[in-house]
């Protein structure tokens, strides 16, 4: 692994900005997905949250990952609400705690920080595989990332693998009957629709792959 095969604070900030851009651009689409099996606010929630994040991050730039992601997590927790606020908030809070007071992360460090984030999401939301939630995009993404790293992939290659797996995981939510979150109230009627949270999670990994592309 070369020494440039890391993601720096600037890289993290670019990631967040790219995620903000994606949820803003796809705001209506996310809301449409949430209209079908939820309450029509996921686009607004994510756009509002990431706008607040970038404002905070811009106002007081961080120098270490733990600092940066604590701000991101707390901002999401205090500006989003709903299910996605605590869940994405917890993801970033745990990610930062595990990454620690560092200025950059290599692929392995990033992956284990992300996995800590996923564990936090599970601890909060109790979702399991196949419940039709963001978990179903996030868990496959991290599995693919770990597998890529284990087989010697670069950071760019590992995040590309994560992006593809997240997208596949998102697509795989379509036939599922939801067992967690608001969509579960629809019972069988929740099948046949993509999960909004899995879709925003796929955007998160798409943004990561873009900013770490070599």
């Amino acid at each position, binding site marked *: 692994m070369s020494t440039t095969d890391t993601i720096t604070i600037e890289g993290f900030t670019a990631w967040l900005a790219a995620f903000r851009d994606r949820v803003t651009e796809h705001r209506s689409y996310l809301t449409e997905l949430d209209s079908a099996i939820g*309450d029509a606010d996921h*686009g607004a929630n994510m756009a509002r949250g990431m706008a607040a994040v970038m404002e905070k991050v811009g106002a007081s730039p961080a120098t270490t990952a733990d600092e940066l992601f604590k701000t991101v997590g707390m901002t999401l*927790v205090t500006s989003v*609400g*709903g299910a996605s606020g605590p869940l994405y908030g917890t993801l970033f809070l745990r990610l930062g705690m595990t990454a620690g007071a560092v200025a950059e992360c290599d692929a392995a460090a990033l992956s284990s920080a992300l996995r800590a984030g996923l564990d936090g999401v599970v601890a909060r*939301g109790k979702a399991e595989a196949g419940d039709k939630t963001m978990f179903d995009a996030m868990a496959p993404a991290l599995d693919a990332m770990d597998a890529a790293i284990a087989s010697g992939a670069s950071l760019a290659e590992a995040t590309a693998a994560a992006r593809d797996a997240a997208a596949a995981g998102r697509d795989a939510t379509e036939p599922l009957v939801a067992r967690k979150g*608001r969509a579960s109230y629809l019972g069988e009627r929740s099948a046949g629709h993509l999960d909004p949270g899995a879709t925003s999670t796929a955007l998160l990994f798409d943004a990561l792959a873009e900013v770490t592309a070599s």
Partner: protein
Amino acid sequence: MKKLINDPDRVLADALRGIEAAHADLRVDHENRIIYRAIPKDHGTVALVSGGGSGHEPLHGGFVGFGMLDAACAGEVFTSPTPDQMQEATKTVDRGAGVLHIVKNYTGDVMNFEMAAELAAMEASVEVRTVVVNDDVAVQDSLYTAGRRGVGLTVLLEKIVGAGAEQGRSLDEVVALAEKVNADGRSMGMALTSCTVPAAGKPTFDLPEDQMEIGIGIHGEPGRHRVQMGTASEIAQQLVEPILGDLDFGSSPTIVMLNGMGGTPLIELYLMYGDVAAILEKHGVTIARSLVGNYITSLDMAGCSVTVLRADDEIVSLWDAPVETSGLRWGR
């Protein structure tokens, strides 16, 4: 989308301004989006905090006042408020006897209130307890799902438990009362039309002229089934039967609410109530008290819900106790 708003992203802030202007007996914290009683209750009394997404008015802000809530945290439309709001409200209303959080059972609400309780317990050593309302019989309950939604019973619970707190009951007693009410009430709702979330800009779902949704919640979500439109008495049947099938009301007195979803006029709600009451009575249910109107709404959705609470003399007398809020007011 046609609405009386200035900007889809400013709906909540603007509405809070109107609530403040309209009610001298409420105090609005605009930064934290919390509605308080203007005059806090006595020291040594358990305080009640609730909250949830906006769009359900008068719930919860309309139930802040003597005999009901001490504070209501307002989230964005259909989006649970955030833990910092609830934590702030909790610290502010605590009168030294602890605070009850009344939470409707939605993943978002539960998680955000959970985080708030953790923060409040850590930071200010306020004793916080939580009741999670889950009365919606349209949703199958299971350990492996998010469980039942909290819907109409929330209104009755806030009234009855609020009266109990006002009497000076301890936090443990207030929690027990809240759990009893939650265990003994059931609801079921239906929609004739979708609502339109301002930020979404269009109806959440489409519903043909000849169909209705049965088993809806209060967030504009589609229901459990889409069925042929029926008469009021057929609809009353479809709402009442799942409730009676889920809980035995025996010969207890009951409190019944016929609630409008926001877009249905009062004349139709009264008409529906006539049919609901007739069916309940046919099934031998004794109606001791009733409430007809818009109490827990879903923006401009047309439709209604029925809530039936199995009561006893104590519950009925707590129901009758004085209340002075913008949404419910009597006896004082």
